[in-house]
């Protein structure tokens, strides 16, 4: 066989498959942005599906004419039986099973990523929690510090606690853009966002700080959250203080419990 590899059906088939892979893996991701169209990496399952279709197509092409089919099979056949091709044959016999073994390993090896699930960001809070051995009823609970002591002082104390403990992830602007933020998926919440603390009562915020990610109910996929449970590190007073800081600093009003005449709960 003296034809050039790109004129031979086997070579052409290989070229088509490789080109298709490049297109699906990178082309769809990188080409549209050049024309101002948004795109993103294609999920592996979709690439697999597309590649399966292309491979079937290539097989159809090489085998729909008798002559091409024979040409296509010839080099494969030669490698399998020709005594002079022993080295190549042995190499293939070793690498192909190894490749399959590696792919199998890659599929089944444990990874740190959680299984995909529909995640509830603000799950329903429990009616009561156990905080340092004491039972706290969350229903109807308000921030006690709003009615005792100096609010300004609580705010200052809250700021100190925030900067010491929360800022690395939630950021100095409370926008969820802390130094470590990009390491987490899902990313730390932005308190500036009108969808977060403004929707919640202070008791909810207290619960989230105290119990952290591990305290989330199932529907909120606790295994995804990197938020620590602060109840062993901060006192109840400190948590309430940092809560005050969150609301005062962002300018949001906490959602309130039933109060006569209060304006709508979404600010």
């Amino acid at each position, binding site marked *: 066989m003296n034809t050039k590899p790109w004129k031979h059906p086997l070579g052409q088939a290989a070229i088509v498959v490789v080109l298709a892979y490049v297109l699906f893996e990178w082309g*769809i991701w990188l080409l*549209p942005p050049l024309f101002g*169209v*948004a*795109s*993103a*990496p*294609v*999920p*592996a*399952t*979709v690439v697999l*599906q*597309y590649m399966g*279709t*292309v491979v*079937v*197509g290539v097989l*159809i*092409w090489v*085998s*729909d*004419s*008798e002559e091409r*089919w024979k040409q296509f099979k010839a080099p494969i056949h030669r490698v399998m039986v020709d005594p002079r091709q022993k080295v190549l044959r042995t190499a293939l016999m070793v690498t192909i099973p190894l490749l399959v073994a590696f792919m199998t390993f890659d599929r089944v090896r444990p990874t740190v*990523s*959680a299984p*995909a699930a529909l995640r509830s960001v603000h799950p329903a809070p429990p009616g009561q929690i156990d905080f340092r051995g004491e039972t706290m009823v969350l229903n109807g609970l308000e921030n006690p510090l709003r009615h005792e002591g100096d609010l300004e002082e609580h705010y200052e104390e809250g700021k100190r606690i925030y900067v010491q403990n929360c800022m690395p992830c939630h950021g100095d602007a409370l926008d969820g853009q802390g130094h470590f933020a990009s390491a987490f*998926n899902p990313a730390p919440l932005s308190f500036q966002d009108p969808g977060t603390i403004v929707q919640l009562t202070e008791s909810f915020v207290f619960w989230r700080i105290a119990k952290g990610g591990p305290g989330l109910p199932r529907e909120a996929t606790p295994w*995804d959250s990197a938020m620590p449970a602060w109840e062993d590190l901060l006192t109840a007073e400190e948590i309430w203080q940092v809560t005050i800081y969150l609301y005062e600093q962002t300018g949001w009003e906490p959602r309130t419990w039933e109060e006569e005449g209060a304006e709508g709960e979404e600010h």
Partner: protein
Amino acid sequence: MLPGVEITSERNVPKPGMTWRSGAGPILLLGALVLLVMAEPAFAQVPAGRDYGDFPVIGGRAAVWVAAQVHLLFAAFVLGVPMFAVVTEAIGMFGGDERYDKLSKEFTRLLLVAYSATAIWGGILLFLLVTIYPTLFSYLAQIFNLSMWIYVGLFFFESFTLYLYYYGWDRWKKGRAKWFHWGLGIALNVWGTIVMFIANGWLTYMMSPPADVTVDTAPQMVQLWSALTNATWMPINIHRLIANVVFGGAVVGAYAAYRFLAAKSDEERAHYDWMGYVGNMIAIGALIVLPFAGYWLGREIYEFNQQMGITMMGGFMSWLWIIQAFLIGILFLAGNYYLWVGMGRIPGAERFMPYTKYMLAVLIVGVIVWATPNTMIASREEFAAMGGTHHPFLSVLGLMSGKNTAVNFMILTTFLSFLLYRRANKEPVVPWARTGTIVQGAIFVVASAIVLFYGIYGYMVPTLVRIGFSVYQVLTVLACIIGVITIDLLMLRGATSRGEIQWGRMPQRSQYALFILAVTFTWLMGLMGFARSGIRQHWHVFEVIRDTSPWAATPALGYSSVVISACVLIFFGLVAFIFWLGSLAEKPVISSAGRASAAGGIQSELQPAPSEG
């Protein structure tokens, strides 16, 4: 939870035996079924005072499911094949080509055994229903008693018409007797169709009972006629009628492929090559109209109950349609592949061979677009990169406009393949042949442009308008098909031939494409059956009789696919046996054929090695 308070859905968690993910499922199912056939209802005992019986290992629902599906597959075969057996016989009668008469008789021979298999599986289904769902069955029996008796009577007539039709074939071969014989074939179809319509009435009643039937309606009070002619009855009738032809064609194709591979003489090979071609043509031809019946059925379901429609298309079954797209993609590819490989046996077809790669490219792009999921499966990292479950670029393809355009292009391409196949060995002699070809090409270009235009324009208009576009696209494709084929028929009148089609000179791999077609059709039928039955969800009779059995939850696709695969395997196991019986009967006739082969020139590598056999 305190004792005494029990949430029933916990009972509905499938038993471990119902959630196989491994390949052991089908084998166990098969084993259980063998047990069942040997020891029928003794296994399924009804505990006193309960509405449901049980079935060992696989559970009652799976048992009834398998019995119903296998029965239905045989029934579809038995109803589909007579339709084109009669047509083939007529072609033989009027065209005077003996070949077609022989083919028609061969179809009918397959029917005989398949017919008794249908009856056996019907019996199994009946006994399982009575023992596992006694309350539901007695409810249905109270409504449908009269129609059940009629059904049995018609079944009787149908059987004996079939016996007369087959065994009288050689006796009533000439002149007026042949007309009588053909009449028998038509009667066979009439009985069969009525039988199917009655049975469809029972099952569509469970899906869409008349609006005046409520939870409190006593079964004696339900009017038989209104129960039979419910909202989805006629759409299902039509849909099944067409699907039966498709299915019959595909299974006949598989039969021919089997006989082709097993053939020992060139003449035999030529005959079964031709038969496989006819079966494939019937299947693909009828398949093209099937979506219309499907649309109608879907619309009736939406009109009957929007919630049911949503459950079917967008609810927990939405992924089922991705699988369906995948299967239909396989059908298109396999069908075209068979035609292209077949062009290798037609002198003159080499003119068209270079074009197949472009048609293949269109098909592959079509399949890719058509099977692109709207909501993708991805890991958390990939979702984070995409910014949601929708891909910003590819989700455009996942929408209806893109998919309709893709499927219309696939239909057009398949039609073009067929056209080239037809044209392969012909040389038109009419003076306007060149103009005609140009007009045909122009029709194709215009049709493609219209389909593409509406496909793109569909993204710019509201949904309601866009739904209308799919109708324009389909009508365009149909008009193109009709226009081009009309020109083709006129143009090829009296055309000279570049040489006869060398029937039998077909590589073996093309026959495997026929098997893939048959298996895929069968599996697709099972899947669509699951969809139709599953949208009732936890109801036996939708919003009338609640399913309170342990199997009330509608299973996920994974489990369903295992059951469907088991059904298909059982069906083809039995069909293989029937095919084998068919070859037993045929043997002495073929081996006596000593004439020179019509196929001629078969290359030696295409012949099976002497050791096989």
